[in-house]
């Protein structure tokens, strides 16, 4: 309940809120490597100091795929702040990633 309240305030401008991001990959495929590189860069540029990245390799933990309804690889999931957001692909379009993370206003 508390979290939900926080999220509504954090949703509009999330100063102070921590971004908990989870990137699903399958081993070291080119797309996965690109995605992780892109993600790190975007976070450093836009979320410095208030983000947390968790990389989940489904080849090692396949059972984790169902929980977040993962189909596409790579998929970035914004666990916090809510609402849950998913961004699929190698994150090569920074603009779209920022939209997806609610860091810039949507289209």
């Amino acid at each position, binding site marked *: 309940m508390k979290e939900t309240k926080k999220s509504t305030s954090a949703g509009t401008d999330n100063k102070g809120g921590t971004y908990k991001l989870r990137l*699903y990959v*399958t081993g070291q*495929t080119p*797309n996965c490597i*690109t*995605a992780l590189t892109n993600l790190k860069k975007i976070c450093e540029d836009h979320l410095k100091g208030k983000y947390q990245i968790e990389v989940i390799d*489904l*080849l090692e933990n*396949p*059972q984790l*795929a*169902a929980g977040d*309804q*993962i*189909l*596409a*690889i*790579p*998929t970035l999931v914004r666990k916090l702040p809510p*609402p*849950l*957001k*998913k*961004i*699929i*692909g*190698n*994150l*090569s*379009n920074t603009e*779209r*990633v920022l*939209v*997806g993370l609610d860091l810039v206003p949507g289209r």
Partner: protein
Amino acid sequence: MARSIEKCPTGIPGLDEITGGGLPRGRPTLVCGGPGCGKTLLSMEFLVHGIEQFEEKGVYVTFEESPEELAANSASLGHDLDRLVAQKTLAIDYVHIDRSEIEETGEYNLEGLFIRLGLAIDAIGARRVVLDTIESLFTSLGSPFIVRAEIRRLFRWLKEKGVTAIITGERGETTLTRQGLEEYVSDCVIVLDHRLEGDISTRRLRVLKYRGSMHGTNAYPFIIDEQGISVMPITSLGLDHPASTDQVPTGIAGLDAMLAGKGYYRGSTVLISGTAGTGKTTIAASFADGCCRRQERVLYFCFEESREQIIRNMRSVGLDLAQWVDRGLLRFHTARSTLHGLEMHLAMIIRGVREFRPQAVVLDPITTFGLIGRSAETKAMLVRLVDYLKTNQITTILNSLTVGGQPLESSEAGISSLADTWLMLRDVESSGERNSLMYVLKSRGLAHSNQVREFLITDRGIQLMDVYVGPGGVLSGAARLAQEAREEAEHRARQQEIERLKLDVERKRKVMETQVEALHAQFEAEEAEILRAIKDAEAKQEHLRQDREKMALKRQAKVTP
């Protein structure tokens, strides 16, 4: 290498017959059709039967319905999915993507789906997989090129895994599936559809293609009921059914006598036709009663009366059908003909027969099907039904209601050729009453009576009577009784006449004999008289001769020179 494709039985009645044993093992099969045509159900049955009958575990990947919805829907068909999941024989994975929460940025693949599927398959050791409906990926993901490539890869991957898979697809405008999945699944394609004909819908299934295997090509009707799907592969039966020489009594002694003394051939088709109220149902019920007495099972389909109605009505003619129902020998199946389409009726009848395995079937009346189909269709349906029943050596009674005013024979030209034995019931109206006559119009392979018989429906069943043919036609009912009385009187009169003539001749003989005696006596008297006269005459003659000698002696000189 000439090796036929290995089949993976679906366990769905009929489908395995059409496909010659089931779906291609280790390959994907596409099942497509419009909304509500039974794709999900067919897929689920494939898995559940696989688990329950063939010990093959299954994975169900649902893209549209949640596992809860799926379980609820399947429960209505008697499948307890939760139990199967708990037993680890079934795994359900709900793949759900909400387009609104997804942003696409650059290249990706669907490895996540592969991993989930692979995990589910390996976790329980599944041999069967259903993907229902994989086409939703196209609407949830923005890049059709990637989805297409990945689906192609998925099918290849499924083949490598060696699982038998069903992939469902929604029917498209011009293509089999909206996204052209048929391009990727080339081994076996099954099309389901749902057709409306005159407000009555019929479900049909067609095996569009089956690479490397023979298969039935027709659109086969199928039904979905509380026992799931059954397909009815009943179109192309040959005429190779066995012909029994065994005869089954008709349940009516007089009728047996008309049919070479023993009754119908087992497995033959008997058509009983007649106008309303001629006793068709009673004859059919008598047969059913007779069968049950011999501990044979009878399945009675009524399309116009309820079970209770028939039992009550037959009790009034001394047939207690309720006892056979209680003992499980007689089963009634009642449905208004307009309830389903022809195909559905056929399917229901055949399902009933498969379940109950009766020795005899009664359809009362078949003419009611004319209400729901064109006559050619009705006939085609009956041909298939009769073929099916014959192949199973089931004696079949078809009751047919003929419309008054038409020549009986011509009005039924359509179905009469189906019948091996044709009993015609006819009403004859004379002397202010209606009476029922019966004759055997034909009976293939039986030396049957050519006689027209009157039959009486009494409180002890049906009795056949002889009929009288008079100048105005056959006599029946009161006219027959009158004729009987008249003949009796005539008979008596003739008897008396004979007696009279016999006495007459006796009397004449006596007269004659008396006369003969009198003549005889007279003759004797006259004879004596005559003999005496002869003697006298002879004596006189002698005397005269002696006198003449004496005289000659005296006149010696004169007479003798």
